[in-house]
């Protein structure tokens, strides 16, 4: 199976040949790859070098944590890549954004209201969790849609809090 794997702007063509071999670009590489204790922790030996890493599924990408650094990695097979190219590339920057609770907690304040224009980075909600006040910020400029929660309310993780369009 052939994959196009992207980190930031760097593309790698990776072909998984069998359990022990991959081809990256032109190079055939022997890999010794094992999940550790059934966890999202992986041990990889390549050319005698021993690496260990967390690999988590992100929303669209994979998050790879290696030696204290995090890499956002997109892995697409050739078919996916072609489809995306045909679609014109790039996810629309203008679609609706739903702010979800990153963890369970207590809503402390909702400093914005429906219809209000906000700038990227502006605080749109304050959530208390683990005795800390966490300021949730707008990921881009936009207009506040429905505000679904109010101060004093307890929310579950991933609960929708408000939307931005």
């Amino acid at each position, binding site marked *: *199976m052939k*994959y196009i*794997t992207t*980190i*930031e702007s*760097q593309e*790698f063509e*990776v072909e*998984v040949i069998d359990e022990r071999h*991959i081809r*990256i670009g032109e190079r055939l*590489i022997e*890999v010794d*790859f094992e999940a550790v*204790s059934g*966890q*999202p*922790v*992986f041990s*990889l030996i*390549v050319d005698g070098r021993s*690496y260990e*890493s*967390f*690999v988590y*599924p992100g929303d669209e990408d*994979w*998050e*790879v*944590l*290696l*030696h*204290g*650094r*995090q*890499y956002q*990695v997109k*892995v697409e*097979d050739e078919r996916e890549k072609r489809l995306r190219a045909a679609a014109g590339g790039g996810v629309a920057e203008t679609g609706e954004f739903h702010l979800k609770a*990153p*963890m*369970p*907690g207590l809503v*402390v304040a909702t400093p914005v209201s429906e219809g209000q224009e906000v700038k990227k980075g502006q605080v749109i909600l*304050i959530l*208390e*969790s*683990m*005795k*800390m*006040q*966490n300021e949730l910020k707008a990921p881009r400029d936009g207009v506040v849609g429905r505000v679904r929660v109010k101060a004093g309310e307890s929310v579950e*993780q991933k609960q929708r809090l408000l939307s931005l369009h």
Partner: protein
Amino acid sequence: MFKKVLVANRGEIAVRIIRACRELGMETVAVFSEADRNALHVRYADEAYLLGPAPSRESYLRADKIFEVARKSGADAIHPGYGFLAEREDFAEKCAEAGIKFIGPKASSIAAMGDKAEARATVIKAGVPVVPGTEDVGNMTNEQLLAKAPLIGFPLLIKATAGGGGKGMREVKSLEEMPALLQSARREAESSFGDGNVYLEKLVEGARHIEFQILADSHGNVVHLGERECSIQRRHQKLLEEAPSPFLSEELRQKMGSVAVKAAQAVDYVNAGTIEFLVDKDENYYFLEMNTRLQVEHPVTEMATGIDIVAEQIRIARGRQLSYAQEQIRFNGHAIECRVNAEDPFNGFMPSTGRITHSLLPTGPGVRVDTGVYPGFEITPFYDPMIAKLIVWGETRAQAILRMRRALEEYRIVGVRTNIPFHQTLMDSHRFMGGQFDTRFVEERFTMNDSAERDATSAEIAAILATLVAHQESERSAHIVRRGERDTSNWKWVGRWERMHR
């Protein structure tokens, strides 16, 4: 002379205190909230009693229930740990009334130092320099504080009168933004300490946060165990501490140490406490506050002096003389502590909750881990995000840094995100290695994941790892579909399901 100690706390510090009691042959009583039935302090104590629901106000802050447990269990001493009831003079007072030994200072010392405004006034009288601020007034209204602020000058800090640990603290750059910040500081102070009072203090720029550990017995002996460097902070929360400070000369250490002893004596202090100072780049030092309790970061002092501070606290509370005179206290090597928080350093240090599914502790020579969590334990949103402290000792600061690096690389916690990568990045920072930092370093001159520092090989390895995991995932889901198609009888699966649940 007490024999049974109630530990009025949770998490790593409750475990730490239970261990000390056990090693001194004393019985221990744990208390717990509904969220903590399976917590380590409950498992390790001789006795354990439920306090109430998960929120602290309904459990760990319920002094009445804690006294009820003390009566029921026959505990004749209480160790409050840090946070919760540790710096509440009324709690210490009620202990005395109930004939229960409070393992900490007298209520009057907590009062004198716990009210930060009063503390400043007290030490000024003893000739200790302080940061300019609202020294002479407690419980000011917002209006009064807003009037006073321009006299102190901006930037300034709003600080919780009952505070500590950076909670209820806000930095103010101008008068306009001050009302909103006052409100949020009071809210946080109220929820953390049950007391919404705040005061103001001038922000000393380019400062280091350096504190001295004090031990004082009930026979009038007071010693200091040297300093801790605590300038690595984020949002006024300490993240890393070390002993000794790479900034302090031996002369300054001696001078500040004796000032710290003087400050403790000014409130007739008994038991363990900490005098916090700000030190500017010209070696001027200012008293900040005294924490009248055990500190989170006490282990770095333990590793650098060989003195078990919690055991000393208990001995002092039992009326013993200090085990050490000032000249017997030796400083040996260098210790560093990294606070491991359930926070995602790649996502604005957002707290992370969930069940820990796996964990691998760094061990070996010179490494200590103080923790209250284990695989299977659930990190809830109710308490502090600090889940472990990783402490190392080395003969020199350089050796301690190298050891911390290898320990951080070994440490695995799966199930919640942690700030371990933050500490790894910090250990690689040339400024940190060179000792060139102040309390603003993390916020102003430090970045996670500087792409310039990534090497090409690591990126390629990350690409290979992600591809192999993605490939495995897609193979597995394809396999499940194929299995489903092939199977004519699905009874086989029922059998497997049931065998697994037997």
